[in-house]
């Protein structure tokens, strides 16, 4: 398991949950420290699931602040990326904000952090069928919202 790669993914997940950079970083670091301290982790077959479970529990314990992004950060993206991509990103972000938090979390875990369905099942403590169905439902809703804005 590449710690540096997983740091970025866990930090992204914590930022999604908490909406605050400093808090997300603190929780991310605490996650890794607890993960490494655990005696069992070396031989656990499900290291990634264990790591995300710690992160999730710590996020739930942490104080939740507003998740809106300052506009200047979006402007940074506009300087570097092609216009179409920027517009698509803004549209996807807007559409995502209209999904339920659970749906957003599933899309983040599955398509951005690239967890397998099995790992998501273990993390969320639901069946494979339930995870698969919820992901498909979230995707369908997202596409419907994007189609409404002609970005599908």
């Amino acid at each position, binding site marked *: 398991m590449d*710690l540096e790669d997983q740091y970025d993914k866990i930090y992204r997940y914590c930022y999604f949950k908490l909406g605050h*950079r400093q808090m*997300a*970083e603190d929780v991310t670091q605490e996650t890794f420290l607890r993960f490494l301290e655990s005696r069992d*982790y*070396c*031989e656990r077959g499900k290291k990634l699931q264990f790591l995300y479970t710690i992160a999730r529990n710590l996020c739930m314990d942490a104080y939740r602040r507003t998740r809106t992004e300052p506009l200047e950060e979006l402007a940074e993206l506009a300087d570097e990326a092609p216009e179409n991509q920027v517009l698509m990103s803004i549209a996807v972000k807007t559409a995502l904000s209209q999904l339920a938090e659970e749906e957003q979390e599933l899309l*983040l875990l599955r398509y951005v952090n690239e967890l397998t369905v099995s790992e998501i099942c273990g993390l969320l403590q639901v069946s494979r069928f339930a995870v698969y169905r919820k992901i498909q439902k979230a995707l369908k809703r997202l596409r419907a919202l*994007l189609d409404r804005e002609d970005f599908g």
Partner: protein
Amino acid sequence: MDEKLKKALRDAFEPPAPTQKEAFLKRIPQPGISNLSFVLSQAGYIRKYVWGISAVLFGIAFMGAHMFGKDVMWGISALLPFAAVSVVTEQNRSYIFLMSELEMAARFSLKSVVLARMEILGIVHLLLLLFLIPVCARLHGASVFQTGLYLLVPYLLTADAGLWAARRTKGAESWYACFGIADCVSVLNLIVQKLYPVLFGTRYIPAWTLMLAAVAIYGVKEWKRSMNRLSELLCV
């Protein structure tokens, strides 16, 4: 899901850049690893041709009864030097490809890595020999002890000469030297079998036993010297 949407999702979830990541990762303790996990992890780094040689020997012995009959032992005896040299070249791979200094900067010491790989190959070759010796003994009609002598002496002779050559040559020359030695031992073995078959009679078993003891003792010495060479680099 199409790539455009995936990219848009990644951008949408992208957080502000972390500020403490580098400092944290530098001071984080390296995750521990059990001895067994470490040894097994080295199996993936052993080159495929090493496994291939062992598989070919196993296959020849397996089919020997049907195709070669009692002559299978001579064929295996001629091929075993290549199995020995594959272990020697694997042990000295860092020196052959001039990577020792770089590998020493890695997480695990070069000596630990080499010992782990030799442990794996040693077990595999031990199992291979434990299979080959009884099979050849049965097909050839000689005793297990006698067959063991005829197979182990060229194997250990090649290993010893290979270790000696690897310590005295550098880079790709080591590789050529080792395989040259395997060729010579193999050809010599075949020539002796054809021209002096009397040497494989029961009368010469004590001589073979002495030869086995000599190559085994010398092999241990050469192996210790190889391991010391790895330790010397650590002291520089």
